[in-house]
């Protein structure tokens, strides 16, 4: 059960969109994918056809019945695709969750307990979306995550964030204990000179941590607004192409590290 966390020190960089679209790409290529939303904004579900009025999520189930499993919070989001929404929450609920997650012994227990259901299936890929910056959930997941995907904008402020990641300043320890973090430059617009310069900087200094770029393309927003997949909206969308490239690279990374046989992400590409 490989776990991919999508997080970023900065808000509005397209974490949720990336997480949702990665899930779509993986599921389309044959993997079973569960997408978990750890962001109180509770917006990930909207990428999976969940009605706006359907506001329940795992936080509601968790606070109502701590004995319930994750499985009770799963909503089917399409073929091979499952989503666990955060749920509409109160301040108290969020605090309660945070304290459980922050408990030294808690996190492993909490997640470990819940892993038994869906999580233990080695053919299931887990993608977790987080709120911007530090969150207790992000710290907690670091013990089980295999890879962390960090979208950033290709602007000047991102340059300082590269070092935040490099120095593990986000959760005061590495984002995961396996493959580490990989940066994705999002909303890249090469018509803007600064965008190109930031890319050059990233290529020059963080080449081994740069997974790819995603071009700025309103197809993504349009598709989300219509609750359709990007390529359904525009089959030549440059962003959709870029996300697919990134997904394949992640698959490659995971396959390399996760011993063969424990996961089948994309049976077609196994031979390659």
């Amino acid at each position, binding site marked *: 059960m490989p776990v991919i966390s999508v997080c970023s020190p900065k808000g509005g960089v397209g974490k949720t969109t990336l997480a949702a679209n990665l899930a779509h790409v993986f599921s389309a290529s044959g993997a079973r994918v569960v997408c978990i939303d750890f962001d109180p904004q509770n917006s990930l579900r909207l990428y999976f056809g969940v009605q706006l009025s359907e506001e329940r999520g795992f936080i509601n189930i968790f606070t109502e019945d701590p004995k319930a499993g994750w499985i009770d919070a799963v909503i089917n989001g399409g073929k091979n695709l499952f989503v666990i929404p955060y749920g509409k929450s109160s301040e108290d609920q969020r605090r309660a969750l945070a304290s459980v997650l922050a408990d030294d012994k808690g996190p492993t227990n909490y997640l470990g307990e819940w892993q038994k259901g869906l999580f233990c299936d080695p053919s299931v890929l887990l993608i977790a979306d987080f709120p911007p910056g530090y969150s207790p959930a992000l710290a907690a997941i670091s013990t089980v995550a295999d890879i962390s995907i960090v979208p950033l904008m290709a602007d000047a402020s991102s340059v300082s964030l590269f070092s935040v990641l490099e120095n593990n300043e986000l959760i005061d320890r590495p984002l995961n204990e396996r493959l580490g973090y990989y940066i994705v430059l999002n909303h890249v617009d090469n018509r803007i000179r600064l965008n*190109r310069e930031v890319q050059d900087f990233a290529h020059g200094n963080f080449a081994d941590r740069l997974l790819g770029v995603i071009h*700025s*393309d309103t*197809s993504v927003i349009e598709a989300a607004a219509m609750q359709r997949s990007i390529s359904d909206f525009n089959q*030549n969308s440059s962003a959709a*192409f870029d996300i697919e*490239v990134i997904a394949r*690279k992640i698959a490659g990374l995971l396959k390399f590290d996760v011993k063969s046989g424990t996961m089948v992400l994309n049976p077609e590409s196994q031979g390659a």
Partner: protein
Amino acid sequence: MKALKFLFAACIALPLIYLIVVTPMNAEDQYIFGLCMIGACFLLSNISRKHFISVILILVSVTMSTRYMYFRATQTLAFDSLIEAICGWILFFAECYVYIILLLSSFQISWALKRETVPMPEDISKWPTVDVYVPTYNESLEIVRDTVLAAQCLEYPQDKIKVYILDDGRRKEFAQFATEAGVGYITRSDNAHAKAGNLNHAMKLTHGELIAIFDCDHIATRMFLQDTVGAFLKDKKLALMQTPHHFYSPDPIQRNLYLGRDIPCENELFYGPVQKGNDNWDAAFFCGSCAVIRRAALDEIGGFATETVTEDAHTALRLQRRGWRTGYLDKILAAGLATERTILHIIQRNRWARGMIQILRLDNPLFGRGLSFPQRLCYLSATMYFLFALPRVVFLLVPCMYLTFGISVLHGSAALLFAYALPHLFMSYYTSSRINGRHRYSFWGEIYDILLSFPLVIPTLAVLISPRHGKFNVTDKGGTVDKAYFDSHAVKPHLICAAFILFSMIFGIVKYFMPQYFTVQLGAVLLNVAWSAFNFTLLLAAICVARETPNKRKAQRLEITLPVLIYQQSGICSRSSLRDLSMTGCRLDNVLGDQVLQDDPVTDLEITTDHGVIVLKADMVSNSAYSDYLRFTFDNLDIDTRREIVRLLFTRPDTWKAAPHKQDNIIVSYFTVLACIWDSLTRKHSAKKKGKNEQRPAETVEDVIKKEGVPA
């Protein structure tokens, strides 16, 4: 050992050759002998394509030609009247000229040197400094601009290369462009000695150890210097490295007569077997552009030669007289614009012819100090070649003189003459077809010469008599021919001559069928009619070159498949595949379909290249919205974007790599000439329409992953 072998071979061959040359025969014996020799060569040639066999063929062919010339000199120069004597001697001299050229060029092409690139040393500090000169006089900035931008793309340590525009036109916009592009701008107060003077002036102001020269339309590929400079480091006495002049636009002959056929163009013979042969004898010469020269060598001879209008060849000759070596690298590393129209082609060759004859007169390579014997022969061949105009006209007119006026310029029976001429002509064609067959097809050399012959007769004679008069004229380039027309002015003498030949052929045929009214030798009539028919074909082909076909496209369009992003006004960004690109526009797969919205126009394109991305504002050609391909035009590109497009279009090392032409076949070639004439006269273009491009996208997800790799 080698010399001994050579001596031995010579001891056997020379008496044999002597015997073959001087033994007289009657017509029948000569026929049999000639046919036997032809048959033997035919067999020999088909045994193998080895160079050794080619040399034997050259030797046999030259021997048979010598036999013919010996026969002509000893048996055919008896004339009945003064007018026949004059015409007869003129023809004989014309044939002597052709014979000398045949000897010289046989020598030139007998051993081609296949020079390889000398790799640059790993230690960059050893690389010499290079000044890149782009001389210009009156060419438009539009042409010069891309040459300069390409020169900036040359891959060479930036602190060791400087690019200069040498503007003899003293134009403000050139100075401004040089500043914007970041290159040097050199101009002077007068235009003394034209291009050579311009170069010499610049040499005083710059300090590079090597000087690379590009005519203002010759766009270099980015490995130009790394391919040519290494040789200078290896050989300290090397003064010059010349590379081919390649044209990416069709020359008038290609455009108006080849009409899309795959036939080697005019200069391929020179920039193939001839220069490589010259190089073997250390006699490759400078052609004015696409070359690198060592400054120290130029300093020794006082700069570029200014006495003649072909400063390039003359400079090389001078360098060689001082013991400097030259080289020719047969690798297309730059490309330029061919002359656009027939008349301009003629004007350009007029200058070359005058210049080379000036050298022949003022600094004769056969005499003077410093050259080796083979070098003398190679330079003599190059300079004497341009005397072809008069002999060529003589050959066109001689058979007509006989058919129309009954002037017999050859003494002897037609049968005997034919028996001697046949092996001479056939074997020289056959040998040249074997050796040069991938660079020049049979009969085309004659067509090129005939096109130039009439206009060159008077200028070449004038300069032969008075070599110090001659003005440098600049060849206009980069124009377009908007609509088809016949440039009768350019080929007026050709037309008159063609009419005369046609008349005399008809007259000859009348004579043949009504011999009772005329006093003629029927065999001679037949021979002369056949000769005239052959002449007429070639002359007609030359005339067809003046039937200008339109060439509206100003910019070179290259088929190239690259990933491209299309930005629409709404912010939608789609991926497509670039299919072709020029400096003024491009064509891509139409991926937008009905999404080409009238209210969501395309604003920008982003082309992904190995060297980064090129982003440009582009206007869509509106009627392409509903076709398979979207077409765009760009204008007002900023200088950096333009440089990137130049880099992409013109500077890839394999940009001009092309498959070699098919080996020549004499008979096929003759029919090709006929077909070209027919198509030109009927205005049919035989170029096959290219099928729709393969629809494979420029780049798939797999391609990207392969290219970028997965970070470790």
